[in-house]
């Protein structure tokens, strides 16, 4: 049985374990119909031309996590947390919430679980307004996630509030199953003038196969500020399909940073919808790959109203047999005058066998807009390398310094200093150097 059939037949078993009377279940049922109709995307579709899910579909994934769950000692996984500072934590082990590793709150803000939000009556008014309202009802993998949506992070920040500390959402896979499919569903709402910072990470702890098909919906009301950081440095047999949908209202500022350093296959579908004026949307990414790793960044910014800005800056360094994709789509509606949309994708290939496919896609229907896009693919600058070596810095370290410098401006906007330091260390590690100072 291929994965699609297995998922379809599993849906009935899934229904035995959720409240099918809840209105959310109508949403699930609709979504399942869409997935049944469309199935997994194939390479024949333009949006999936460079990323194949074929081999993943042949894997016999376990679809339901074992209810008893696994435990992990904090000391064994501490290094995956931003332990240098105090944070709220929503932690899952093989898809099951770990209260032991988590630190949630209901003190003025809700930082808790999707399973509560989807079942407890007190959250129903919020769920009615927001659940599955910005996520695509058309895209099949999003529908698949919606159909099985049950667990994930639920964050609600009321008007004018800001949580005391950043929030970490971490998914661990223990290798308890030979191959495991995870489908976390996150809902994040920042009401008017609210502010929050989120760090999301998926971490497999063994070389067993893991596929995560994640959907995150983010709603930023008027003047809300959301900083979202995705750390993708997963194990060799871990794959991630990340579908993030962001709805922004007037004067809100949402920044998403994606750091892709590992994993077998990573697909980022990052979608911004600007439903208001004077909105700022920022997408930044650093990708450093080696081995046979594959990362596919698909971004979309839909400028629906006038006077908004969007900024995209993705830097990629590809070594060995790694492959990368950047596809950045910008839509500017006819009424969205005075839009400023900028997109930049720069890549360095450090191996003859590495590949990058980069494609800007601009659909502009307004006439008074500033849009720019640029993509480059190059090698390291030999003159710059000579400059560093002539100062006594060996070739390997000199190359790493140049690569670091290349990616650096993406890091400037990281607003949590400890996270920035952590990313710098990950970059140095990924580049295989110890430069004698913390970058």
């Amino acid at each position, binding site marked *: 049985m291929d994965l699609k059939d297995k998922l379809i037949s599993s849906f009935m078993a899934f229904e035995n374990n959720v409240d099918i009377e809840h209105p959310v279940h109508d949403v699930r049922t609709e979504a399942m119909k869409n997935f049944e109709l469309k199935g997994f995307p194939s390479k024949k579709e333009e949006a999936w031309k460079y990323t194949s899910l074929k081999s993943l579909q042949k894997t016999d994934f376990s679809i339901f996590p074992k209810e008893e769950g696994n435990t992990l000692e904090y000391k064994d996984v501490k290094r995956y947390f931003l332990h240098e500072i105090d944070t709220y934590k929503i932690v899952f082990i093989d898809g099951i919430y770990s209260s032991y590793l988590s630190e949630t709150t209901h003190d003025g803000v809700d930082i808790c679980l999707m399973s509560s939000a989807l079942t407890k009556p007190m959250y129903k008014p919020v769920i009615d307004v927001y659940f599955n309202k910005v996520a695509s009802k058309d895209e099949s993998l999003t529908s698949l996630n919606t159909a099985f949506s049950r667990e994930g992070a639920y964050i609600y920040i009321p008007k004018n509030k800001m949580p005391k500390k950043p929030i970490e959402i971490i998914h661990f896979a223990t290798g308890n199953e030979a191959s495991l499919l995870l489908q976390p569903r996150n809902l994040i709402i920042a009401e008017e003038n609210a502010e929050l910072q989120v760090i999301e990470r998926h971490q497999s702890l063994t070389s067993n196969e893991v596929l995560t098909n994640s959907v995150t919906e983010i709603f930023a009301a008027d003047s809300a500020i959301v900083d979202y950081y995705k750390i993708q440095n997963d194990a060799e047999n871990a794959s991630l399909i990340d579908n993030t949908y962001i709805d922004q209202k007037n004067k809100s500022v949402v920044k998403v940073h994606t750091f892709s350093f590992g994993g077998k296959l990573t697909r980022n579908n990052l979608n911004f919808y600007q439903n208001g004026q004077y909105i700022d949307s920022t997408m930044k990414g650093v990708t450093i790959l080696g081995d046979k790793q594959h990362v596919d960044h698909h971004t979309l910014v839909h400028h629906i109203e006038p006077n908004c800005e969007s900024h995209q800056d993705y830097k990629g360094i590809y070594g060995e047999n790694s492959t990368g994709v950047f596809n950045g789509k910008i839509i500017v509606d006819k009424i969205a005058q005075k839009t400023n949309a900028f997109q930049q994708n720069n890549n360095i290939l450090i191996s003859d066998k590495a590949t990058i496919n980069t494609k800007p896609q601009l659909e502009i229907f307004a006439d008074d807009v500033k849009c720019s896009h640029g993509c480059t693919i190059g090698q390291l600058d*030999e003159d710059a390398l*000579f400059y560093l070596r*002539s100062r*006594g810095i060996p070739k390997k370290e000199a190359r790493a*310094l140049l690569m*670091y410098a290349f990616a*650096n401006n993406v890091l400037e906007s990281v607003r949590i200093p400890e996270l920035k330091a952590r990313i710098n260390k990950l970059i140095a590690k990924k580049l295989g150097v110890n430069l*004698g*100072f913390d970058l």
Partner: protein
Amino acid sequence: MLKIENLHASVEDKEILKGINLEVNAGEVHAIMGPNGSGKSTLSAVIAGKEEFEVTEGSIKLDGEDLEDVSAEERAHKGIFLSFQYPVEIPGVSVTNFIKTAINESRKARGLEDMPANKMLKLIREKSELLDIDRKFLSRSLNEGFSGGEKKRNEIFQMAMLEPKLAILDETDSGLDIDALRIVANGVNKLKSKDNAVIVITHYQRLLEYIVPDFVHVLHNGKIVKSGGKELAIELEEKGYDWLKNEAVVE
């Protein structure tokens, strides 16, 4: 200290240096002058070990050791320093961190431990004062957004920190106003000693009013066509290079 014999060098099969002979001893300052395209910058890059240039004939020796198979970083460890005409911008790496890395890599190559932080700090303070460099400047990203003068001053600061045996200043005067030129030249003069040597590569005589050479060599079409004392630089300033070009043809 440095002995160059019959040096021929090419880039992409185009011969640029066509038989250079030059000997530089400790305590000396040599100026290499010449028109654009004469091979001045190539000579400095070849001495510093740039791989793009292929040495097809002849040799470069430092303290008797042939540098043929010695990499650029190893030459730096042995005490060769090149001040670049166009220093490279490295965003995200501060001047301080860069120089620390450079010093400690050289120390590592010599089998020494990293320089203790307090000693490093003291050295940085001392050398930045010598060149009238502001502390804030040191925490900026290396060369990023630096003015021409700041870049050159930063090059000389690195030279001061690394204390090379042989410093090659490639067009250090280009892009400098007279005040910056004076500061840079003063810095170089203060760093001069009987144990080190300086090669000043320049198009104009201007810098040589401040860094007074013991020897002046004129490079034309990949060869040294004339050598002399400091008065040769003045003569060149007055007459230009054309009379030498003719002389070279006669040779």
